[in-house]
């Protein structure tokens, strides 16, 4: 085990490369993954190491190659499918949901589909509405899928390795803005993180702030600022969306009695909606204030800088909303 600095981009690449070294059934396919070294350079160097049989450039044909990879998984291979962004995976969503997620059930357990669909999810910066959507709630709604959306390098590496080893179809939602972020952590070659476990990134006693992906960074910054204002915030990084770690969330809220959920997705039927409903059902007696939700505004993401800023939650929004919830503390 060594403490080192690692970017999210490199962590993802290491996770895939380490797994591919130990299991030759694993291959990666997608647009620009091989000769171009990845549209966002996540697969940098993998073609050189593993060759074109296992690092495969596809034509721009998301529905087709997603379905082809599902067929390969049915037949015992372990495909990693990179979508240049999950926005393009909407072209392939029938194969992901109807074929990958449901066939194991529909076949009475005969057909197995060990596959990872991965790529950047959510808004990047100034790329407009069609390239800026969070799909956590969409895929999170589907029985048969596991859905992961980590934040830092260590979690990205450990969870991507777990996703590749998992025998079920896994949606792995990355974030373009975090790719270049560097995190100092402990890493080793067998660094695996269990799917379905949230992580308390900071403990606190007054309010539980729940986030995933990029929003975890904002939540941690907000927690520091809240500390200055006399509010002790606990920050939970969900890491896995499905199966949701209900226990960690409920235990935290039982302690803090207040909860705020922050995410980039649309507000209607969001991850925050689901967690709010769960808390009302299972921890109502512990709540001292209404649950707060922060999400994107209910609007396609605008391009103009000022409008884009208005659309997505930021650190300041988390601080403000947490203060409202904690009024009287």
């Amino acid at each position: 085990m060594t403490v080192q600095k690692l970017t999210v981009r490199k962590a993802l690449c290491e996770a895939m490369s380490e797994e591919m070294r130990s299991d030759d059934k694993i291959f990666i396919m997608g647009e620009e993954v091989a000769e171009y070294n990845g549209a966002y350079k996540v697969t940098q160097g993998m073609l050189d190491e593993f060759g074109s049989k296992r690092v495969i450039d596809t034509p721009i044909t998301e529905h087709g190659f997603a379905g082809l990879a599902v067929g390969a998984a049915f037949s015992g291979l372990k495909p990693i499918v990179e979508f240049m962004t999950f926005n393009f995976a909407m072209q392939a969503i029938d194969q992901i949901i109807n074929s990958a997620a449901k066939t194991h059930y529909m076949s009475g357990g005969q057909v197995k589909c060990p596959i990872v669909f991965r790529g950047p999810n959510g808004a990047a910066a100034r790329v407009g509405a069609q390239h800026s959507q969070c799909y956590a709630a969409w895929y999170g709604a589907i029985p048969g899928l596991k859905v992961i959306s980590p934040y830092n390098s260590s979690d990205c590496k450990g969870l991507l390795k777990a996703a590749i080893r998992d025998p079920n179809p896994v949606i792995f939602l990355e974030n373009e803005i975090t790719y270049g972020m560097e995190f100092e952590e402990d890493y080793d070659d067998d660094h695996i993180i269990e799917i379905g476990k949230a992580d308390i990134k900071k403990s606190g006693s007054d309010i539980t702030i729940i986030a995933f992906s990029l929003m975890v960074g904002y939540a941690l910054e907000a927690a520091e600022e809240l500390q200055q204002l006399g509010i002790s915030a606990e920050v939970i990084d969900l890491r896995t969306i499905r199966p949701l770690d209900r226990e960690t969330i409920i235990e935290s809220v039982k302690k803090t009695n207040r909860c705020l959920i922050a995410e980039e997705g649309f507000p209607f039927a969001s991850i925050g909606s689901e967690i709010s409903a769960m808390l009302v059902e299972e921890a109502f007696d512990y709540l001292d204030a209404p649950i707060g939700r922060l999400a994107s505004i209910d609007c396609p993401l605008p391009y103009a800088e000022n409008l884009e800023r208005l659309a997505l939650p930021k650190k300041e929004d988390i601080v403000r909303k947490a203060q409202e919830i904690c009024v009287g503390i």
Partner: protein
Amino acid sequence: MVKLNKEDSLKIYKEMLLIRRFEEKAGQLYGMGLIAGFCHLYIGQEAIAAGMKYNMNKDDKVITTYRDHGHMISLESDPKKIMAELLGRKDGCSKGKGGSMHLFDLEKHFYGGHGIVGASVPIGAGLAFADQYKGNDNVTLCYFGDGAAHQGQVYESFNMAKLWNLPVLFIIENNRYAMGTSLKRASSIDALYKRGEGFNIPGVQINGMNVLEVIKEGKKAIDYVRSGKGPILVEMDTYRYRGHSMSDPATYRSKDEVSEKKKNHDPILSFKSHILDKKIANEDEIKAIDKEIKGQIEEIVKFAKESPEPDESEIFDNIYQ
């Protein structure tokens, strides 16, 4: 014309007849309310599944859309379990969780049974991709209908299959109607086997109502793919006697059209005549087979009816491994 010995001829006759009688019985059980939902019968198209099966190697794979009973039977999967699945019973091949459109038998290399029109085509290309990746000489027979032939992902699959020379036969079972829409009303061209030309995939049209033609021409197509030359597109000219599904009275075509097909092109009657004309077997031997199938169908129905519904405790099983 391909020559088959007596044993193979009778085996194929029996197989086609089993599919026909199985489907007729499924239609009856549907009418009685024992089968529900969507149920698409293969009657009229039996020569395709039976003929192509004759040409296959043991480890070759098959995938198709929701008109899947006949293919599964031709692969010698247990018809009792298929009928139990249609009835939604515990002993069904998918434990009662799939139904008519979602039959699977991986031991027989049958990968379904897919309900979304066109979606099984890239999956079929993926099965072939896996065999190429593993370095064996298996081929995949990827069946779909003339309706599916208009889906975009079919052409995405053609492109990748030829680009990578995948060992896959794309087999269009052209039964002339995509639900109620005739091919003429859905396609700018009549010859679907030419649909691969833009991808440099050769195409061949086969009389899918004649099992000997299917065997002869189908073998050439399989040999081509197995030799490593990449995919081929096969159009099987065929006809379904029944409606698209059990809920379709098929009023979009004339009774004369259907009866002409039944009278002059029926794959089972014509093969039976061939067997008798060529003195491969005599009337008594054919009658014995008819009787045997009748008895088999009774056993199949008995098994399916006696199988219990799945335990309620099983509802959450098989979502995840």
